[in-house]
């Protein structure tokens, strides 16, 4: 049993932390104010990341590397620490810097994770190394993915897509968009498949960019598909509708990406807590674990509680990623990590804002920004309530028709 970070990731974490500190933090406020303006600084970062990838310093990390199992173990026990662990570790640091900017790093989109999870070799060759966004939500279908109404109709060698997608992170910037659509609206979940659409494909139209509470550096797009034709080979996974198989392919993505969102939460939660600890220390409040919770001041006790919750969220996140690396089913644990980390991070950023009083609520500090940024983490990639549903169904052995 070991819960410490292996030495082989020390460099990766250090590099990611430096990016967060030296590249993200200085421009955090700038792009929070200039919503929808593309952070040009990130192009440099993207090439830097590509370089680090090639040199091996990134140790196979990144949204596009999230494979389950795979790879050889370096330990006699057969235990693997691979791309999933490396990616949550580095995303924690990047999001310690800035969640919005981390979400708009070229080629690190959630669509990249989807492609990595379900694409075949030929598709990996075509789509690998390109920036992919993820389009699931529709104006009338949010958490209920089975209610998706966007359609895909096979016509010769092409699929014809029709429908409207909202809340697409990096939707106006990414090279590719992974679109969820149904092959047959009468056949429920089993008919829902994911399709890769190249930017600029005729029939794909950017309708608008949303103005948001936080993560303003990241664009959130609404896109319409009107008789949008894509090659038949752009369908990810199995093209057949297999009754009773549910989301099989498409949902696999979430088992890999939910720990990643949990890692983002741990990052922004830690940012707020560390800054608050600094500010409170300057104000004479220091909490070195030398008093019981009941003898500590109210502010100290609050710091202890937040630290304990953050630590538990972090460990749940690392374990969920570790399970994925070792090819062990982790749906329940991925949802546990996501549910816990997201609510803890949101709580911490809000409480830290309160502890710092007007310093926390005003724009001189980034605390008020983190309080806005963190809220999305408890919503996207499955809301808190969806995570609890997944966990409960697994624990109780219930289907989605029994436990609705």
């Amino acid at each position: 049993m070991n819960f410490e970070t292996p030495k082989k990731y020390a460099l990766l974490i250090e590099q990611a932390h430096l990016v967060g500190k030296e590249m993200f933090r200085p421009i955090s406020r700038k792009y929070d104010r200039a919503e929808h303006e593309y952070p040009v600084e990130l192009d440099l970062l993207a090439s830097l990341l590509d370089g680090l990838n090639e040199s091996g310093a990134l140790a196979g990390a990144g949204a596009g590397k999230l494979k389950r199992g795979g790879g050889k173990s370096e330990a006699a026990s057969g235990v693997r620490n691979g791309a999933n662990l490396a990616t949550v570790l580095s995303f924690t640091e990047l999001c310690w810097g800035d969640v919005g900017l981390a979400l708009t790093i070229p080629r690190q989109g959630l669509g990249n994770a989807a492609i990595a999870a379900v694409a075949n070799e030929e598709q990996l060759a075509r789509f690998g190394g390109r920036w992919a966004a993820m389009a699931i939500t529709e104006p009338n279908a949010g958490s209920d993915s089975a209610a998706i109404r966007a359609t895909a109709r096979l016509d010769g060698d092409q699929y014809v897509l029709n429908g409207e997608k909202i809340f697409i992170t990096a939707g106006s910037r990414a090279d590719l968009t992974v679109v969820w659509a149904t092959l047959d609206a009468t056949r429920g979940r089993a008919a829902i498949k994911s399709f890769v659409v190249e930017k600029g494909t005729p029939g794909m139209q950017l309708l608008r960019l949303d103005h948001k509470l936080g993560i303003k550096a990241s664009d959130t797009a609404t896109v319409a598909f009107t008789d949008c034709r894509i090659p038949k080979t752009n369908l990810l996974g199995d093209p057949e509708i297999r009754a009773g198989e549910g989301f099989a392919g498409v949902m696999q993505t979430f088992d890999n990406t939910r720990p990643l969102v949990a890692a983002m939460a741990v990052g922004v939660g830690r940012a707020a807590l560390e800054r608050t600890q600094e500010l409170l220390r300057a104000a004479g409040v220091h909490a070195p674990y030398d008093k019981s919770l009941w003898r500590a001041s109210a502010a100290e006790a609050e710091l202890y509680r937040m630290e304990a919750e953050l630590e538990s969220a972090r460990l749940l996140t690392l374990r969920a990623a570790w399970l994925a690396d070792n090819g062990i089913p982790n749906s329940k644990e991925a949802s546990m990590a996501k549910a816990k980390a997201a609510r803890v991070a949101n709580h911490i950023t809000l409480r830290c804002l309160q502890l710092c009083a007007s310093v926390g609520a005003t724009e001189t500090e980034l605390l008020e920004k983190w309080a806005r940024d963190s809220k999305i983490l408890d919503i996207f990639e499955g809301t808190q309530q969806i995570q609890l549903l997944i966990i409960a169904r697994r624990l109780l052995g219930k289907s989605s028709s029994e436990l609705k």
Partner: protein
Amino acid sequence: MNKDALGRHMMGLGLAALRGFASSPLAQKVGLLAPTERLLYTGAKTTVGAAARVFKLASGKAQRAERLPAPSTKSDLFDPSVSEEQALLREVAQRFAREVLRPAALGADAACATPEGFETSLADLALGPMTVPEALGGAATEASTVTSALLAEDLAWGDAGQALAALGPVSVAAALTRWGSAAQQAAYLPPFAETVPPLASLALSEPRPLFDPLELRTRAVVRGNRYVLNGEKSLVVGAERADYYLVAAELLGHGPCLFLVARTARGVTTAREPALGLRAAGLGRVAFKDVELDTSDLLGEAPGSVNYAHFVARSRIGVAALGVGVGQALLDYVIPYVNDRSAFGEPISHRQSVAFMVANLAVELEALRLVTWRAAARAEQGHPFEREAYLARVLTTERGMELATNGVQLLGGHGYIKEHPVERWYRDLMTLTTLEGGLLA
């Protein structure tokens, strides 16, 4: 303990005996105990403490104390899984918890005592031999904090009160192994390797609101070549029955220290003081009024040789692990209950208000478990672990309360009556949130 020693022990003492348990109920087993054997057991129990003290005074010469290394690790990879050896040991402990502790829990709670024959049946787990170094008659070649925490967790799944009664004495042995002088080890440790170990008890908590183990009011002063101890301890496991106590006290001019104090020493008084929960552990108060102690009764070679912060942290990991065990028992119990219980024409687990409570219970339990395991792993690896143990303590306090109250709530009225164990877990968890000391991981 290395794999061979573990295997030897589990085959010799654990598994074989447990196979016996599987085929015969505990009551039968106790009934079969020969009267002479029982007499021997009772006799050993009451005399061993005094005998040890005499032996100690006779052999005060300097030797080297035995210290157990942590299990060696070859890999630094992140790994939240248990080792093969630990998995084997857990199987034995979980079976003992299921077949011996759980069936006896209700009665032990009512009686505020462990059931008759408890110490004898406990011998099957070989807790003492697993703690005492080979050179002192035990079988231990290593000391694994993680294994200790797992053991506490698994036994507490059966019953936290009895788990505490079982782990209290062996925690004193662990403290002696970790910090004791050669003479103290020679005097006190060999009896723990016997079939029925001595009843020793770790006394840390003090009876006052806002108690903090880092601010003790039990005090010792130096008077000539002796220490004089004054103060009072609460939540002491087996307070009235213990042969001796390991008492945490502030030594004037030196800071917090640990003292070995016989129950029969002049100035020691005990009183039964049952708590809300953990009643099987026979909790009580122990008061010290001008108790005179030898310099050799101070644990370790000299004041300061015990790392008191580590002592407190290890106890916090132990308590947190007990909490995880009770939480797991609760989760395992409410899941079938909410699936079987129908209301408004369908199982209540089909309602999100119920299902989400179960989900949250599981999330918070896993959260507490991982924080506790990390603290234990860091202690074992020789890293600083006071912070992690403190955080485990904070979560035990915060989440223990939540698990306790929601467990009963999920069963509604049935959670409130003694036909189901959840009201006991409610009391056990809440008592754990106030406990400092009692056991060590």
